[in-house]
Structure formats: C-alpha cells, structure tokens
C-alpha cells in the first residue's frame, strides 16, 4: 500500500473510530450522571450516531415486509425491495454475527492485504445468503416444517460455524504463539540467529502442515510462515505491506534456505488462485445464516414471492459485505500502520508485530469460544428469541 493511501485510510479510520467512541462515551455519560439534576430530554428515541443507526435499521426492516406485499400486485416494487434490503444489509452488518470481528482479526493475525479482506468479506457474505436461502427452500418450501423445527437446524449450523471459528482461532493461536515465543527468544534480534530459527520453523511448519489437514487451515499456517520469513529476511527495507514484494522475497529465500520444504510454491499462494487459503475463514464465518434473512424469506414464501425473497437476501448479503469489507480494510490498514511504526524502531519491532499477530489470533479464538458458549456477544437473533 502506498504511504499516502494508507495515510488517508488511517485518517479516515481514525475519524470514524473517534466519532463512534465519542458517541459511545456521550451515551454512557448521558445515561450515568446521577447528579446534575435535569438531563436534557431526548427528542428522538435515542440520540447520536447509534440512535441514527438503530432508527435506520428499524426503518428499512419494517419497509421490507410492506414492499414484499406491494410486489404482489406491482412488480416494480421489487426494485424498491432490493434497494431497501441492500441498505438494511449495510446498516445491519455493523452488529456482530456477521463475521466482521472474526474476519478483521484473522486478517491482522495473518497480515493479509486489504484486497484479500474485501474478497473474504464478499465471499463469506454470499455464502451466508446462500445458506439462508437453502434453509428456507428445503425447510419451509419443500418440507413445510415449523419455524421451531427450522430454528433447530439454524442452531446446529450456528454451533458448527462457531466451532469452526474456535478451531480456526486455536490453529492461528498455535502458529502465532510459536512465532511470538520465537521472536521473544531472538530479542534483541541477532540477524543470523533470527534467520536460523526462522528457517527451522519453516521446515517444521512445512512438514507439519502438508497433506493431512483441511486445505484452508493448511495454507493459512503455511502462508504465514512464508510471510514471516520474508519479514525477517527483508528486515532492513521494511516494505512488508506490499504483498507482491514479500512474496518475491520469500521466493528468493526459499531457494537459499528452505530447499527441503514440501509446501506449495509462493506463486501458488499469491494472486487470485491463492485465496483458497482463506477458505477456512470463509466457511467458519459464512456458514451461519442471518436470521433476518430467514425471516424475510419465509415471509416472501408465504406471500407467494419466494424469488423476490431470494433476491432480497442476496441484496442484503451485498450490503453486509460492504460494511464488513470496510471494517476489514480498516483493520488491515491499522495493522499496516502498526507494522510501519514498529519497523521504524530498531529491533523490538518484529517482536511487537509477532505480539500483535498473536493477540489477533487470540481474538479469533476468543470470538469462537465466546460465540460457542454464548457468553460473549450472545446472539439475540437466534430464531427470533426462539419464537417469542
């Protein structure tokens, strides 16, 4: 990423976070000041950015049902439905359960590019839409099962998805933890020692990961080692944000130190074909359908307009993807800035980066375990609170 571009991104991200943070703090303050007598009365249901987000979401959501009804007699209403669904997706994805946090952490942990982050966001969102359509098509349309039974299926899928996220996170923690410990050992870094330990890790990783595991996990682990390797090797010119560059380096290094590696060639990992390695993340995140989409689909089906519901679901997915992609880019650029800043410092930079990646990997694991146990970010959307 060019410095100017990343700087612009950073500033933008900073502005967004600042606004959100201030807004959040204001909310807390407004709600928590017991002294000071009269609070200014709120004119809206809830003020500020969050209130506005809330209002918008509710508005779009409510309009969906009336638009589907309208589409029964007026075909052109479908366009309005698509637009509303798209907008709803954009606003709604701000909440958890859309893989935003998982994808962002994964990207930071694995030092992925913004482009890959966007691709991951889109593919997982489309998968989410597809799963929702399949559940309703099979469950409601073909089998005519009750909402309660359908909810059971949803829950199984959700648990599978959370389990995958946790497994994925554990895997990341394992690799990143090993790297972090290695970085700790070589601190203060002695180039020769660093190189030696890294090439050892490389061979180990290559040996360890080939063949038996899932392709997604396998490539993830492996890929990281390549990155890390290039990082250490190119320690003096610090241009790791540039994906292509890093790959050239690892290719170069490969010949010199790692002839015995059995992993895929760097060229296989780069470029459009290499996104295979994000497959684990895509499946983990995209498996769980959005309950809102299922509701819309069931409603559309009951109105005899299932196809309109399907179109709306994918429009919603597209909106979701845009929000998740934006946040992923924000996370990636934050990671890039961290890398640049830590690169500016002499030896401890590598250690800090390893630490950040380790922490990000830990977050993925935390999200997975948290979602699985339901303590963190309890998913309130599960089957509309199990049919109120």
């Amino acid at each position, binding site marked *: 990423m060019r410095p100017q571009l990343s700087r612009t991104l950073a500033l933008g*991200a900073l502005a967004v976070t600042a606004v*959100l943070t201030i807004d959040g703090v204001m*909310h807390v303050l407004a709600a928590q000041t017991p002294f000071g007598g009269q*609070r200014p*009365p709120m004119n809206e*249901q809830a003020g500020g950015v969050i209130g506005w987000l809330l209002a918008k979401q509710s508005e779009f959501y409510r309009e969906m049902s009336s638009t589907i009804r309208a589409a029964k007699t007026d075909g052109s209403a479908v366009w309005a439905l698509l637009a509303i669904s798209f907008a709803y997706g954009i606003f709604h994805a701000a909440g*958890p359960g859309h893989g935003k946090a998982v994808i962002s952490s994964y990207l930071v942990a694995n030092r992925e590019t913004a482009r890959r982050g966007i691709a991951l966001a889109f593919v997982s969102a489309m998968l989410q839409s597809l799963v929702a359509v399949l559940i309703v098509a099979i469950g409601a349309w073909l089998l005519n099962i009750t909402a309660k039974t359908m909810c059971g299926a949803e829950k199984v899928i959700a648990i599978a998805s959370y389990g995958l996220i946790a497994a994925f996170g554990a895997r990341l923690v394992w690799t990143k933890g090993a790297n972090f410990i290695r970085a700790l050992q070589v601190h203060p870094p002695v180039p020769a020692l660093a190189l030696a330990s890294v090439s050892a890790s490389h061979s180990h990783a290559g040996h360890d990961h080939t063949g038996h595991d899932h392709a997604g996990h396998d490539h993830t682990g492996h890929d990281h080692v390549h990155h890390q390797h290039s990082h250490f090797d190119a320690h003096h010119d610090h241009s790791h944000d540039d994906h292509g560059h890093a790959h050239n380096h690892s290719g170069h290094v490969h010949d010199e130190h790692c002839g015995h590696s059995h992993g895929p060639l760097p060229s296989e990992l780069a470029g459009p074909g290499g996104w295979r390695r994000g497959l684990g993340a895509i499946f983990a995140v995209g498996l769980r359908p959005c309950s809102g989409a299922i509701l819309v689909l069931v409603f559309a089906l009951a109105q005899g307009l299932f196809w309109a519901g399907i179109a709306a679901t994918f429009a919603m997915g597209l909106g979701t993807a845009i929000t998740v992609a934006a946040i992923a880019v924000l996370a990636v650029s934050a990671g890039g800035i961290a890398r640049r800043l830590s690169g500016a410092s002499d030896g401890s930079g590598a250690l800090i980066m390893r630490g950040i990646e380790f922490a990000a990997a830990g977050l993925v694991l935390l999200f997975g375990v948290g979602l699985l146990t339901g303590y963190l970010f309890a998913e309130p959307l599960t089957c509309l609170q199990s049919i*109120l």
Partner: protein
Amino acid sequence: MRPMTWRLTGWLTLVMLAMLGVTAAQAHPHVWITSTSELMYAPDGSITGVRHAWTFDDMFSTYALQGIESKKKGVYTHEELASLAQTNVESLKEFGFFTFAKADGKKQKFEEPVDYFLEYKGGFLVLHFTLPLKTPVKPKVLALEVFDPTFFVDFKLADKDPIRLVGAPEACKFEFQRPNDGAASAQALGEQNFTDGGNVNFGAMFANKITVTCP
C-alpha cells in the same frame, strides 16, 4: 514505553473501540408488538394481575405460523395455534414477560401466566395472556412498564385504549407515557439509573410507562 509503542497501542485500542461501538448498534428491534393491557382488580380494590393482548407485526406473525397446519387455508383456530401459544409463553418467561410492576416503589413478582391463547386476525397474531401478581396489592401508586431491556422487541401501546382498569375503585386514575414522548424517555432513563446503577437497560429508553394512582 516509547512514543511509537504508545501510538501503536492507541491505534489498536481505537480499532477495538470501533468494533465495540458498532456492536451497540446491534440492539435494534426485530419484533414489533402493539400492546393493550388490562389491570385486573379484586372486589376489595386490590390489583390481582395484568391481562395483555399483544399483536405481533406481520413479518413475525408469518414466520411464527410457518409450518402450522390449519383446516382452512389462512384461517387458524385457537386450537390449531395452541402449541404455538405454549411456545410463546414458555419463551417469554425468560424475559420476565417484558412486564415490570412496582407498587408504591416496591418491585412486584408475577406468577406463571394463565388463560393464554393466540388468535389470528387480519394477518396478525395476537397473544392473550394473564399474569397474576404473586400477592395482590393495594398501593397508592402502581407503576407498570412494558418493554424489552435489550430492545429486541419494540413495544408500542395501541393507539386506542391501550390501558383499561377492570373492576377498579372509582377514584383510581391512570396515565401513560409512550417512549417517543421526550419527557418519558428521559425520565425512564433517569429512574433506571437509580434503580440499577448502570446503563445496561438500554431498552428502558423505550419503555411504555403506565401509572395508576388510587387515593
């Protein structure tokens, strides 16, 4: 720590805050309920319970009806909806039936709901149920709130006659505040702070507040 590390820490903190910040935006309603409530009085003038009639929005109504068999298409009898009503009542228990009562400032407890059934009217499901008070009370001021603290369900008092006092002594008067009334939300927010000491009850801003005074 060196300035660089500080900046770095600051950055990551900001990103985390952004994630948490937008997380709060998740609390938005997915189910809309238009409610009417009756306060039931015993002959001696004490309040025995609350009888709700909650009309669900059309999208939720359709979703809940998915897969429910009926003899006549588009017409559901109370019997055909009995199992769904059972599910409703069971799942609502977890949320304390979204009904919060205070008699002269003292929190009241409710029994399990009785006389519950669902009716299907013009594309909407209406849930009827009675919440008996554990012990009937005869307070000067009864405050009744109907809301979802998590704001997953958006409660709205019906436009017409949302509150009725059934068998109440003549001197009893009631008033109610809707959440979109600015004063009401500020007040609800304030009281919630004193009672719960936090802003966890986000949905309190959207509470429907009913006050009955009997001199």
